């Protein structure tokens, strides 16, 4: 549900008591809100942000670029929704922040850096937030000998298609190897970056376009290896009033099903110590915590180590919510904290199931010489030898 602030703020926003639970880990050991931990002014906790939004909407404080900066200095990781004690309020905290951003955009206060997202996505030669020429994926279809019509569509997502192509290619090889009947579409951005940053004007057009492309393939199942796309397709598209008859999967769900069915027989081992980073968009936003762990544990040779903050308690990678583009230095600082935590596990590989997390963790890994291998789960599978049966 997208909260319409003009309609609902009186009923919702002022309910925040600013008790401060939103800042913490579940056991209160540390601050787990990246924004508060960085800035340390109450203003930058979710509680502070709720009060700021209330102040703006009620007219107690005027709109300004400075105040809007507070609303944007949040990775919308959802730690607050996990820890706020007020039921039927906590679940809307991220929605309220995104709705306030939409309000800021309407009033002409969208920060310049984040504006680039919508400008690139709406550019008819791009349709992606990276400013790359649009790939209609025809070359990939040819390369992988994919049909025009299929049971599944692999929704690649912009980060995998334009930045983490290794992850994309590993996914394509995996889907081929396990004999999934799938194809690709000339996809445009799923709109996650613009929804997260409140630039929602053309979202429904993008959704309609993508759905039409999917419909043309006859597919009823969508699979993506991007946690952000997964959340957006499965949750946000519905919020924007779209009605679709599609099943949305993350690749990790497919891998788990195949493993559970005994269709994958490993012929090699991955003899490394791995720690799993929960992407916010898959974990706190979609409540999907155990499936990835079950998959890692079934890979022969893997020693899976948990970081201290995991599952609902996970520390964000710092990329989401427009933070990567809006606050690039801070964004990698957040990732560095995750890598520091990963170091304590003794792992040499930090792995996740989100190309955006992969990007930011890799950036921090490089910048701070942390010497990790940053690998997506599907890339680990790409390094393994396994046989697939059709039972």
């Amino acid at each position, binding site marked *: 549900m997208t909260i319409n602030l003009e309609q609902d703020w009186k009923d919702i926003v002022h*309910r925040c*008591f600013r008790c401060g639970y939103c800042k913490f880990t579940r056991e209160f050991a540390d601050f787990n809100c990246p924004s508060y931990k960085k800035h340390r002014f109450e*203003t930058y906790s979710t509680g502070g942000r709720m009060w700021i939004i209330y*102040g703006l909407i009620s007219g107690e404080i005027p709109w300004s670029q400075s105040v809007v900066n*507070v609303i944007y200095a949040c990775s919308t990781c959802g730690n607050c929704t996990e820890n706020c004690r007020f039921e039927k309020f906590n679940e809307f905290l991220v929605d309220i922040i995104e709705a306030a951003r939409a309000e800021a955009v309407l009033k002409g206060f969208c920060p310049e850096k984040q504006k680039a997202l919508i400008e690139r996505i709406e550019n008819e030669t791009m349709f992606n937030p990276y400013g790359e020429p649009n790939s209609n994926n025809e070359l990939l279809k040819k390369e992988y000998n994919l049909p025009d019509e299929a049971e599944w569509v692999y929704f690649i997502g912009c980060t995998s298609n334009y930045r983490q192509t290794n992850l994309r290619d590993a996914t394509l090889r995996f889907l081929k190897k396990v004999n999934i009947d799938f194809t690709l579409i000339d996809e445009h951005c799923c709109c996650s970056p613009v929804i997260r940053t409140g630039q929602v004007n053309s979202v429904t057009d993008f959704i309609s376009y993508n759905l039409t492309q999917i419909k043309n393939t006859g597919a009823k199942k969508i699979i993506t290896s991007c946690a952000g796309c997964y959340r957006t397709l499965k949750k946000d598209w519905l919020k924007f009033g779209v009605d679709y008859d599609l099943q949305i999967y993350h690749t990790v769900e497919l891998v788990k099903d195949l493993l559970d069915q005994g269709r994958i027989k490993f012929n090699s081992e991955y003899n490394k110590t791995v720690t799993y980073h929960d992407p916010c968009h898959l974990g706190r936003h979609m409540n999907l915590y155990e499936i990835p762990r079950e998959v890692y544990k079934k890979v022969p040779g893997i020693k899976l180590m948990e970081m201290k903050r995991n599952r609902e308690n996970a520390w964000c990678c710092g990329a989401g919510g427009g933070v990567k583009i809006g606050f690039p230095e801070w964004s990698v600082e957040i990732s560095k904290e995750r890598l520091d935590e990963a170091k304590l596990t003794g792992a040499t590989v930090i792995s996740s199931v989100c190309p955006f997390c992969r990007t930011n963790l890799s950036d921090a890994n490089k910048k701070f010489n942390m010497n990790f291998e940053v690998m997506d789960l599907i890339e680990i599978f790409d390094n393994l030898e396994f046989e697939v049966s059709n039972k």
Partner: protein
Amino acid sequence: MNEEEILIKLQNIVGKEFVSNRSEDLYIYSQDPGASLPRQVDFVVIPGKSGEVQEIVKLANQEKIPIVPMGGGLTLSGLIIPVKGGIVLDMKRMNNIIEVNKFSQYALIEAGVTTGQLLSYLNENYPNLQPPIPDAPPSATVAGNMLIHGSGYLSQRYGGHGAMINGLEVVLANGDICKFGSCAVSDYWFDRGPIPDFIGLFTSAFGTMGIVTKLSIQLFPKPKEREIIFGLMSDPKDLPELLLKITATGYAEDILLGMQDKPEWMKGYVFIMTYITGDSEEDIDLQSKVIKRIYRKSNARFMKAPEKMRNLYLDKPIFAAGAADFRKGGGFEYVGAFMPLEKIPEAYEKGAELARKYGISPTLGSRLIGGVHTVVMFFSYSFNRADSEDMENARRALHETNQLVLELGGIPWKAELEGQKLILGKMDPNYIKLMKKIHIALDPNGIMNPGNWEVD
């Protein structure tokens, strides 16, 4: 110095990123979650160490700028909102747990350590020790709670939290950093004395005497077993006798009482929770039988609580925030009052009448401090923060409750400005005179949270 010059000076002390006079930060720090009206703030500063606090205080003293220390900001009575503008000093960046002494059982911490942080640290590193926990969210700072004469879990058995302070490091208005308690003489922060004890100067002073930067607090052994014996009593007049009997057993770690019209099952009853502890299930069984027998013989009855409720109350910190959402309006304040035991029945009766008079569903509670030596009463009023009339109604109810408390022989706790005035109105004139002399001696320029405890 003009505002810009002061800003630069402050930035030079703590770093640019930890000083603000941006309107959005001033807006947030100009109010708290209680019913107080917003008041002006000029700067928010977040120091990282005692030396920085010292430099800020020296600057404030030189420029005669009011300075208000803030912990979790959860007193609800506006004590961290400046009365005369100036600097709010958000202490939460000073959050080092410096030492835990497992023999003398104390923790030496910086003033910004939260109760949640300390609890978590002890659970992980010293699982046999427990800290006192206030009836507040985990973001409340330990120092804030101790220094407002707080109470909470462990108060029945071990006394008020303010009495659990072993020692303080305080930055005085002239910039001196002064140690109080055994740490003034020894490397060990294990006791308040035996030297003249000035620690009391800084409790319930609301920052008017100095800014506490470090403190040592008592820790306590954690029992192996803990259980809650729930009870219900229909007539509050029987409470004093009941409580005398329970405390006489020596079994109770904590005793909490509640009386409210909602949910429906609580209406017309006083709800009793007696926390008992022991080394074994046998200990708990034995004590449980004794407490239940006392309930029966004192016109109360044992209540078998659902597992969910039991777990909720055993998970202590979670208990605190729920009350604030009673009316889904984001506003909550209560008159906490230190009361003599014999006045509790009357406090419940008149408190409920008063709440109804203001159209507020009665929500009253209390907990015992140090046996029956003090009972802290809670007269709670939740309100809709988005409704100015509702907030004003709550303020009127709070004010009349303060008056009621004083009439009954009690004293409002962590009282807001109006409550402080009522207390001062009843205070021994020579006490006021002495307080004023001490205050002038320590803070001749009146920079320390001025407006609080202020007498002409």
